[in-house]
């Protein structure tokens, strides 16, 4: 039986198809702000407990338990506390947070208010990806609506809880999705990661205890409060329950976003929801979780889509941006294109990422262009080793995914480039 059949309705995207789905009236007509009302009737500790029961793990990439993060921030005596919603959505191929914010902004806002209540935050920020200018208005309208109805501001719904939300527009840097760089950016500084410890839960934005959570993470919270942590914990795998919005792209018949329970197989996602490989071609490889996830191949189609299973297969689920490549794809070109992204996005702070990724890129370009030298493959591997484990932040480590993944499964294709002094697959993946 397919797991998807177990839940009849979606959780996160169950309202986006409604007419005027963004408006607070429609939201209220569909159980909107019920979770908040329930939460305010509980103590903050009880709210955190409920979320803990749900076993909700962060959807930003690392899968950190949400309730645990809130607990750390709540335990810090320093005030005021801040909740930053990470809406930078910078991972290539990812477009999940956008669906929520665009179609159901109140779902996020309600989640933020509840989270803020749970750990005692007074101020919330939505750090919004620069490339989503249209969402600024949508979010601000929703925030204003919520304020008018007394869900935001001072003394929310007659309680003594105060909470405000502001939208902060990013400036187009992938690194600013990393939580400490995001904090620097909100403070008006250059987007670069900070030294940890101290962790944001103790010393975050403006030096205050801060929780950074992804849009998708926070958007689950109102449902958990409404239906109970136990209900949520029962969806999908035990260690990683809930649904996931998969951003499916590449050579499939039906690219798009799909909310699916955690633990479905990639075969199901690609062949059933995505309609299979475009033009009846064969699958060559897929990247399960954004640019930094090493690629997997057809032998991994039955791997389950949850953090632990994908990690066991040697990749990572990350943001669930699933990129599919058919048999005509040149894997050297794939590595080159993705590495180019990381070279462009490296903040430049640490030596191995700044210098190493640039060197990798030049080698890949040379191999793809037919000027590869004997020994270039070994050098690629060694540069990866010299970067690995030595970068300041995870971006540099993530930058190795494309090279390492393609080298692992497609070394022969690299060698052919060297032998033929050029790309054996004429079509490539286009020039973008």
């Amino acid at each position: 039986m397919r797991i998807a059949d177990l839940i009849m309705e979606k959780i996160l995207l169950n309202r986006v198809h409604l007419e005027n789905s963004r408006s607070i009236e429609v939201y209220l007509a569909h159980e909107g702000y019920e979770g908040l009302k329930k939460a305010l009737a509980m103590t903050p500790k009880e709210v955190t407990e409920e979320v803990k029961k749900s076993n909700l793990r962060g959807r930003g990439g690392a899968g950190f338990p949400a309730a645990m993060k809130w607990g750390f921030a709540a335990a810090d005596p320093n005030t005021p506390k801040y909740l930053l919603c990470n809406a930078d959505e910078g991972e290539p191929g990812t477009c999940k947070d956008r669906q929520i914010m665009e179609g159901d902004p109140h779902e996020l806002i309600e989640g933020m208010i509840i989270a803020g209540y749970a750990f005692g935050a007074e101020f919330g920020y939505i750090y919004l990806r620069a490339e989503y200018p249209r969402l600024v208005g949508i979010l601000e309208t929703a925030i204003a609506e919520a304020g008018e109805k007394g869900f935001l501001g001072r003394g929310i719904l007659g309680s003594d809880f105060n909470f405000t939300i502001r939208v902060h527009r990013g400036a187009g840097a992938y690194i600013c999705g990393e939580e400490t760089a995001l904090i620097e950016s909100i403070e008006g500084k250059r987007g670069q990661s900070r030294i940890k410890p101290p962790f944001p839960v103790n010393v975050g934005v403006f030096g205050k205890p801060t929780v950074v959570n992804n849009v998708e993470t926070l958007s689950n919270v109102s449902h958990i409060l409404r239906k109970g942590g136990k209900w949520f914990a029962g969806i999908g795998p035990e260690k990683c329950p809930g649904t996931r919005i998969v951003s499916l792209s590449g050579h499939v018949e039906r690219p798009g976003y799909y909310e699916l329970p955690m633990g479905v197989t990639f075969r199901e996602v690609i062949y059933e929801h995505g309609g299979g490989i475009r033009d009846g071609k064969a699958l060559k490889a897929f990247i399960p979780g954004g640019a930094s996830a090493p690629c997997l191949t057809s032998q991994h189609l039955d791997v389950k889509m949850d953090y632990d299973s994908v990690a066991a297969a040697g990749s990572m689920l990350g943001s669930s941006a699933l990129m599919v490549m058919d048999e005509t794809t040149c894997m050297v070109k794939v590595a080159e294109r993705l590495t180019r992204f990381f070279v462009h996005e490296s903040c430049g702070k640490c030596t191995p990422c700044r210098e190493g990724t640039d060197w990798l890129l030049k080698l890949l370009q040379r191999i793809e262009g037919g000027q590869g030298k004997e020994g270039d493959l070994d050098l690629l591997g060694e540069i990866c080793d010299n970067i690995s484990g030595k970068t300041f932040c995870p971006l540099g480590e993530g930058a190795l995914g494309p090279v390492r993944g393609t080298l692992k499964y497609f070394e022969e294709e690299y060698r052919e480039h060297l032998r033929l002094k050029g790309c054996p697959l004429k079509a490539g993946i286009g020039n973008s």
Partner: protein
Amino acid sequence: MSTIKITFDDKMYETEPGLTVIQAADRLGVFIPRFCYLEKLSPLGGCRMCLVTLKGVPKLQTACTTPAKDGMEIITRSEEIHKARKAMLEFQLAQHPLDCFYCDKATECDLQDLTYLFADIEHRYDFPPHKRGTVYENRLIERNLERCVHCERCIRVCGEIQGAHAVNATKRGRVTEMREVPGGGECQYCGHCIDVCPVGANLDRLFTYGGRPFQMEMGDSICPYCGCGCTVSLNMRDEKLVRVRPGVDTGVNKGSLCARGRFGWGFVHDPARLTRPLIRKEGKFVEAGWDETLLYVATRLEKIIKEKGPGVVGGIGSVRSTDEANYLFQRFLRTVIGSNHIDSSARLNYAAALAGWLGTKEDAREATFENVREAHRVLVIGADPLETNPILGLAIKAMQNRGGTLWITDPRVTLTTRLSNRHFPISAGAEVPLILALARAGLKDPSLSEFRDTDLAARTGLSSEDLAELAAFLEEDAAKTVILAGRGVTQAPFGATAISLLLRLAATKGASYLFTLDKNNERGSCEMGVLPDRLPGLAPLSEKARFEKAWGGRIPETPGYSAYEMLQAAREGKLSALYIMGENPLVDFPDTKFVEEALGSLDFLVVQDLFRTRTASMADVVLPAASFAEKSGSFTNLEGRVQRFPSLIPTEEGVRADARILVELSRKMGKGFALKNIASLRAEIDSLVPMNGTRRKLEVMGPPLSLPGAEMHWGPGEDPDYPYVLLLTSSLYRNGSMSNRAVGLKKAQQKACVLLNEGDAAVLKTGEGDKVMLISKYGEIQVGVKLCHEIPGGTLQMPEGFSDANPKSLLPHELDQVSRTPMARFVRVKIRKI
């Protein structure tokens, strides 16, 4: 103090808690390579050179970001570590231009040194390096973008220590460039980003190709500009200065310098330096030998003394010259000439503060730079330390970085008011009523009862709430409070009295105090007795017997004239001869016309200087003197610290040190000082003025100071003919005539300009860059306009010290009746468009 135990490479050490691993290693002598870490900056963790293994932790860790904890076992040498560090070096070198051959940093470069150490680095990068060139957007600093190792030390030092935020990282990743960009802070030319750069990416443009270290001599000296007294390392090649750097984290400046200290040395080798004595013959200067000249001076002085008595001879000592020269100067005037008419330009500032200090019975604690750095609160009254005493300014910034608070009362908009946590914009000249109000609140002194708080408040221009808050500021946390006062107080009527009240307040509350001093040796010249009424050690004339015995001559009993009284006496024919050592009253003293007439009335004027200054041009004899680099001695800084320095450059043929000139002149006058060398001179001074550590023991008192009347008014008053109030400010880039001859400072800022409120400019129909004429009752000057929205309408601000436009010539020379200091902070002017 508790210690922690940590292990480096299986050897156990004990060290203090609270350090990072690299700090512990540095203290214990364990080597860990680095590019980005620097003790004085916050850690970055970027270069990844300092990777070490912590036992039990799988990944390598950066020593500069890892706190050292008790029981930690650290491995700094292993194959894995060596390979990782080598890899970082290979990355750094991949696109480095390797143009060491003509890089000014070669042999002082961390990249060279570490590469040499890891000699087995492979160079497998075989692509053409990214060309990015060198930028010259800073007039004094060259930024070579290709040599940069992205350690961000320059950014951090500029932001964290200098507070300028001028250099920033621009772009991203491999093409990140450390540059000054529009919208960033303004460079203050401290040059700190040059020193901290581990490679040749930030370079001193005055030095370019100046020499390799082994071709240079280096020696520590004391900066000749302001009262901070920073330790400078002079770098000479072929006996010529080529570069100045801070002493290596020594001295009061702890590795920082300001623009003047670093880039202001150009005057030393300026071609306009005097190298031969000049005697005016038939109205024209002719060069002469030293013997001939000194004999001529002696003969002329003797003749004047014979005809009119010693009381017609006066002397102006030097706030620039050494303690030793000033000591000899007053000894010369007192015993060789027989006159107490001795003063210096310290009269314009420190002498008034000193009068206030002498007139205070309570013992207030004088602060040190260290106290300022560690203070919780600083209150500045009438001073702009960021411009006048930049390293004191850095101490204030450091205090703020540690969470301290800076409050300032000043009618002007200055660098310091901009830095302050709170600025109280008092009315022009309102420092004294402000202090009276604070004293009334804090001292409960019946003699202050005739003043009314409401009157005082009205005079300060502050609300009574503001005044109450200021008074409360001094009540709390006094042990960690420092009061800084400057010329806003000392140059006001009853300024000395106000200083005295401020010191009493400090003493009563337990706060400490410090005076900002613009010139390097204002304090030393006074403490050496270059005062009309005080002998060395500030001894009163009543103690003269002790000095007469030591000097073997008689000292006149009555106090002499102060500076302006000498000038007035000259105009009245009561002073015939004046000996000026290293001062330029025609430029530096208020009321130029008055000064010029006074000097013109003299029968005989001797000027001893580095340059043919405007004052020297009026002299009968000009004696070429040595600069700080060419003589030895001590300067006394604003904390009272006596700082010795050696002579590091030989004097040019024909130039002599001040002290030597005075000794030889005394011999020519038949009362030769029995002094063999600088050491015997020092011994003599020490025997008369005992030292207490690095400071002089000064156990002296003066008369209590009289209070102003309750009806007294301060400030510029009203005058419809002169509708604007011009407030004088100081500039970091100018400090006397040396600075106007320093090419580096001229590059930093070429010209003075007057700040004009935008609304006033619109009424006057002038704009940015236009030239205007400022006219006061006393003079007029031409100056360019700069618009400023921060200053209030009806007010102008203009810096002193620029040779192209000197606001001193607009000032009156009204003297304070207590300190005989001229009031020189503001004047009423009108503006004419040119």
